[in-house]
Structures are given as structure tokens and as C-alpha cells.
């Protein structure tokens, strides 16, 4: 399924969470969002935000000082 991309590089928490929250507000249930970040704190914060907001983290992975989270938008 096609995924939307959110570039949250260089942003420090909680800004990537805020950007994710605002982006998901514009999306439909079941859509996929890939969030791309450089703050390692997102690996904790975005999954926590997803858990309390009813969205599902499908996958997380990391590159060279970069962090990626794939989210499936909840209903």
C-alpha cells in the first residue's frame, strides 16, 4: 500500500510527535504514514503517542543517526 511520508528530520521531541499528530488528523483510517526523524527520542515517544491515540506502529527501523516509524492510522 502506498505510504505517506513525513520528514521530521532535525526536529526534536516533542515536535516530531506534534507533526505526526497533525499529519494523521488529515489522513484516513488504514492509511500508512512513514515518519522520518533524527531524534532518537521518537522511538519511544511516537509509539507511546500511537498507543494512546489508537494508531498502530507497524515497523520501526534505524539508519545512520536516522530513525523511521511506519504507522497505520486507526479508526
Amino acid at each position, binding site marked *: 500500500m502506498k505510504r505517506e511520508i513525513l520528514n521530521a528530520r532535525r526536529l526534536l521531541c516533542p515536535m516530531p*510527535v506534534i507533526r505526526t499528530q497533525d499529519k494523521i488528523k488529515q489522513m484516513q483510517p488504514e492509511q500508512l504514514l512513514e515518519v522520518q526523524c533524527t531524534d532518537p*527520542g521518537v522511538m519511544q*515517544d511516537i509509539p507511546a503517542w500511537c498507543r*494512546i*491515540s489508537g494508531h498502530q506502529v507497524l515497523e520501526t527501523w534505524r539508519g545512520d543517526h536516522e530513525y523511521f516509524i511506519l504507522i497505520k492510522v486507526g479508526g
Partner: protein
Amino acid sequence: MAQQRKAVALISGGLDSMLAAKTIMEQGIHVEGINFFTGFCVEGHTHAIRDKDKAKPKRNNALWVAEQLGIKLHIVDVIEEYKKVLINPKHGYGAYLNPCLDCKIFMVNKAKQWIVENGFDFIITGEVMGQRPMSQRRSTMPIVAKQSGADDLLLRPLCAKNLPATLPEREGWVDREKLHDITGRSRKPQMAMAEQFGIDDYSQPAGGCCFLVDKNYSAKLLDLWQAQGKRDYEFDDVMLLKVGRHIRPAANFKLIVAREEGEGRFLQGYQKEFISLLASSHNGPLVLLDGEPSAEDLFLAASITARFGQGREADWVQVGITFPDGAERNVTVKPLSKDDIPKDWYL
């Protein structure tokens, strides 16, 4: 069937707001959290930047509290709007550049707007009478309620019994008898309540959760305002004041010296906006130069850059200077000694 009432709780990530929300949830009210990000929140930023803190957990306490409570949390970016609060606070500053009373009024006002837009009934805060010298005093609590526009829709569950009954109490949405009468700076009542609720892990930030109550941070912000000749800032300014050693050798420029690799990586992101300096003959930190230096100033900046690298004891160090447009220069300088840098250059 009675209407399900809904409250929004200002969640800072500390214990008090957690207990306030829990107290109201226990009464069957639907509670959601709201957290305002001003840019000055201590949460996350510095330990996200600095390598030395990488071993510590990086949880955002507001999110963590919301998860413990099982409630939604709405994080709201108020960076731009907050400028007018900080730059010109009606009620003045606290010990440093902390406009605590205006800040509380601002946040409760934003929460009031939020409940109107989202169909909620009232607002909860974790305020405790007498706990904070500026914003949580008997005399200032009514000011917050009135000037925020929240009036009697603002309920402070931890000290409600010391205050006139609010609308949620008068209407019977919440039982006033089950609210609390905590006063003062002692944390014992809150700790006892936490134990009662089975809460054994909570954040207790020393000195609060805001950089503006920090003496050194406030001094750097004041220096920024003096250097630019006006009380204003951009979000990047707020971030950069949290990072590195700040050294001002002259009114027309200052240096931001990375203290370790994590800060260096963070400062790299600003190399297209600032002149940057980096020793090429020895290992050393990335340094950003903020201001408009003369050619002579650049040599001084390079000597300071050399001072903080592994060539500090060498006779000469080569320093590369990169300009925002990508132009580069290399200079050879003698590193300044520790005593060559007056203490009052350090911000």
C-alpha cells in the same frame, strides 16, 4: 441517563497534573490530556542532543503520564503564540525570565479555547495553592481563572476545597467532597495520594519543567536580546541556547562550541545559516559563529575554536572557516590558553 461530562486536563508530565486527572477520572468523568509545547520545555531536547545522556530513557513524561492514566493526549505547538507571553509579560518575570503567571493564564486560555472547539465541559489543572511562588498562590489563582477566560470552568482538584466551588462542583458533575485541600510546598500529600492510587513511578523535575526558570538559560536569552537590540526570538534561537558553550568575545558576535559529538551533529544542521569553524589539523569541536565578525574577529574565533580541540597545547592549529554560502577559508592560529578567555565571555 445523565450526560457524560468531559474534562481536559493540562498534563505537564509531573505528579500533580497526573493526580488531578486521576481524581476526576475516579468520579466517572471522561478526561483527555492537553500539553502545550512552548519551545522552552525541558522535556526531551537536551538529552536528545547530547550523547552523554544517551543511556538514559528518553520518554516524554506527558505522554507517559497519559499512557499510565489511559487517556488521550493532545500536544499543541504554541511556539509562535508564546512569544508575546515571554517578550512582554503583563505580570512580569519571576527570578529569571520565567513569566509563570502569564504562562499559566495563557495555557488555561488555550485550554478554554480547546474545550469550546471540542465540546468538552471543563478544565483541570494540577495546581496546588502555595506551591509555586508566582503562579500558584492564593492571590494569583483567581487571576488565572479570570484573565484566562476560563472562570469557573477551571477546576483544581488538588486544592479545590480551599477555593470557591466551580461550575462542575455546583452542577454536581463532580462531588466536591471527593476533591482535595492540599496547600503549600510539601510533597507529602501528593506522594500519599500517589501511593493510594498505586502510582509508584513519576517524574519530579527539580526546578520545574521549563528552561526559563534556569539562571544560565535566561542569561543567554537576555544576551541574545541585547545583541540583536530587540526582545524577539525564533525557534532556532530557543534550541541553540540549549546547546554547547556560548562565548561572547565582543558585542558583534558570539560562538557556540559543541561540547561533544551529539551537539556537534546537531550544530551541523545550522551550517547553512551560520559561519562555522572546525580545526583541520587536530580533532576538535564544531563551532558556530553568530553575528557579523570582522576579519580580525574571525582570527579570534579560530583561536578560541583551537582552544577547545586536541590542539589546545600546540603552537599552531589550522582552522577551517565555512561561510553560509559554502565559501571556505583556512587560517593558522595559536590556540588561546585557558587564561586568555575572560570568564565574562562565557554566557
